């Protein structure tokens, strides 16, 4: 059990810190969360800065244009960027954390050359066309159809909860290519250009009032067969590659962010006198313990991933389950500290409190995570 970092890792941390301290004051002001074109430009601009400094695709393999950093270096990167208040991955999330790693792992040489560099250089944005109105947690129930017509697939159906769809260049799309096959078979992974004819994007307003996601309607959209990643009808396996990344290291920066917010909540409580309430104070103390423990679990999972060659393990489900609830408790506690002020939508924590409600639903609901833990980790019999 070793929690110290090697001299090389400490040097990496110091270099990154110096660079962040130099560039962050130069950044333009953050755009409004409702202005998607401005957010796209801002997030791509930040990605370009990372690229020029050699930090783009840090954890991607070298032959995919990445830096081949170890999981520990990636952990340090996420910790330091969050601590320094650097921009969130934002509109580049799907490209850098989902579609990119999937193409790097499963794509052909030509596909890697076409799609990976623009993600790293901050030139193209990806969105995720997985969920459907009748296939959210039960992803394999998806019905969007694709059939072959010459060198194209013709795609019809609809997708939902598609983040960044309004401003995306590409969509990692799951389609059903064999309706007769059992539901996990017969699915194919396609890269769909978002400017193809037949695509209609309709923004969805969330309970927070913003348009985080969109519905995407597909009416006989033609996608070249060359855009298929992996074999036809092998999309489920390809998808699992993607999801394991989502559940592995995707939340590292957010734990650091929650720890920072919790300190701010405590400082606010000291300022407005709520700190004298022992019940509230102890609740914040317990949250501090929870987020410290989640940080340690992150370090544990990263150590496990490092020994397994960088592939995140099933421990990600345990982490996601606890983290998503802890995040909601954090903003509930923040509201308690703010008192009536917590009803002001102009307060950052009020918006964050509303956003946190999605955490137990997105990327596999808490109930699905518990099924995964019970059946795949604990080996309980399969339920129905």
């Amino acid at each position, binding site marked *: *059990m*070793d*929690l*110290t*970092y*090697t001299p090389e*890792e400490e040097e990496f941390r110091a270099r990154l810190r110096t660079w962040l301290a130099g560039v962050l004051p130069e950044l333009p002001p953050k755009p409004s969360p409702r202005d998607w074109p401005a957010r796209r430009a801002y997030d791509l601009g930040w990605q370009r800065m990372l690229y020029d400094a050699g930090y783009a695709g840090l954890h991607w393999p070298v032959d995919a244009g990445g830096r081949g950093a170890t999981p*520990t270096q990636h*952990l340090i990167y996420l910790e330091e960027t969050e601590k320094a208040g650097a921009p969130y991955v934002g509109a580049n999330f799907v490209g850098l954390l989902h579609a990119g790693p999937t193409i790097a792992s499963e794509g052909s040489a030509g596909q890697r050359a076409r799609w990976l560099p623009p993600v790293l250089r901050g030139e193209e944005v990806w969105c995720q066309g997985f969920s459907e109105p009748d296939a959210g947690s039960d992803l394999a129930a998806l019905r969007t159809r694709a059939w072959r017509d010459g060198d194209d697939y013709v795609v019809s159906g609809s997708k939902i909860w598609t983040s960044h769809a309004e401003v995306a260049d590409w969509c990692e799309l799951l389609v059903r290519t064999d309706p007769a096959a059992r539901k996990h078979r017969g699915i194919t992974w396609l890269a769909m250009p978002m400017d193809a004819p037949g695509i209609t994007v309709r923004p969805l307003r969330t309970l927070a009032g913003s348009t985080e996601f969109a519905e995407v309607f597909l009416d006989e959209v033609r996608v070249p067969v060359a855009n298929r990643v992996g074999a036809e009808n092998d999309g489920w396996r390809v998808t699992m590659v993607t999801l394991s990344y989502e559940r592995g290291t995707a939340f590292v920066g957010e734990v650091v962010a929650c*720890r920072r917010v*919790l*300190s701010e909540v*405590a*400082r606010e409580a*000291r300022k407005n006198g709520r*700190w004298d309430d022992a019940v509230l*104070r*102890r*609740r*914040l*103390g*317990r949250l*501090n*313990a*929870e987020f*410290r*423990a*989640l940080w*340690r*679990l992150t*370090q*544990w999972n*990263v*150590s*496990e991933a*490092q*020994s397994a060659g960088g592939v995140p393990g099933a*421990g990600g489900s*345990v982490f996601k*389950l*606890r983290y998503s609830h802890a995040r909601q408790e954090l903003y509930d506690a923040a509201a308690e500290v703010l008192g009536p002020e917590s009803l002001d939508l102009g307060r950052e924590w009020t918006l964050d409190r509303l956003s946190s409600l999605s955490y137990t639903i997105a990327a596999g609901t808490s*109930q699905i*995570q*518990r*099924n995964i*833990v*019970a*059946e795949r*980790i*604990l*080996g*309980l*019999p*399969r*339920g*129905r």
Partner: protein
Amino acid sequence: MDFRLTDDQRALKQGVRDLFEGRFGREALRAAVDRADGRRGADAPERADGKATAGGREGADGRRGEGARVLDRELWRELGAAGFFALRLPEAEGGVGQGLPEAVLAFEEAGRVLLPGPLIATHLAAGFVAGAAAGEVVVTSADGPLVEWLEEADVVRGDVTGAEPLVPVDPLTPLHRLPATDGRPPGGGAFRAARTPDGLLTSLFTAAEQLGSAARTCESAVQHARTREQFGRPIGAFQAVQHLCAGMLARVEVARAAVYAASVTADPVDIAAARLLADEAAVRGARDCLQVHGGIGFTWESDVHLHLKRAWTRTHRAGGATRSEEESADDLVAGTA
């Protein structure tokens, strides 16, 4: 950074597990419970007079006949011979020369099998109290409102003046309560004073024992859910049961990361976090395990209640949850979070 256990640590953990399971397996546990239960039945009417001796008691005065004793002296000496108490003593002083992480792994295994006795106090006394390291002398200490194993200990560290026995909920942890000092219950009230090094270690090793117990009850629940059939299939195929078990594992794994990290850093805030998470994992884990076992879990024959009662008992050691929560809250405004 490689947070995983080293090969040596894994081997040590397995060795300690083999020792405990061989020497204090289920039959030994139930025999000890029966011994304690029989003694309680015989003693209960006279217990109210509470004639515990005052602090610094040393030697065998006031002992009852061996037959009435619950603490297995032979086992204690075997633990001593195996190096459990001297685990962290330098080799030059006749110890095993291991560190805090190794000790935490050993206490985790002790918690797993519900090893009885003032293990932590004796471990902390090794090197200071003659005979403690070898398991020849049983040491307990007063570090809060309660003292464990007062009547069976040879040496008591701390002031136990006025200690009165209570009928302990855990049959294998005899308890005395201490009188309140300056109007406050001991261990309650203000927390500004930093813990002593022994207080910190007691809290950390307690967390390790809770972790072991939580892992054991999780395994027990899963094993039962896999085999017990209702409505024509194993109850573990029902989502309601699956989700109880998944929650148990999630608590164990978060507690494990916290406890192991605290053993590496020995940081007081890490220890407070470890304690809070491990107490929760052990208490809620035992309750959920009981729930999964259904009616069987409510019987004396099932071991679940022994885990729950011991877990409850441990939560009162070295300052309860309140103190850990306050320490953790202090850390938030100290700006080191």
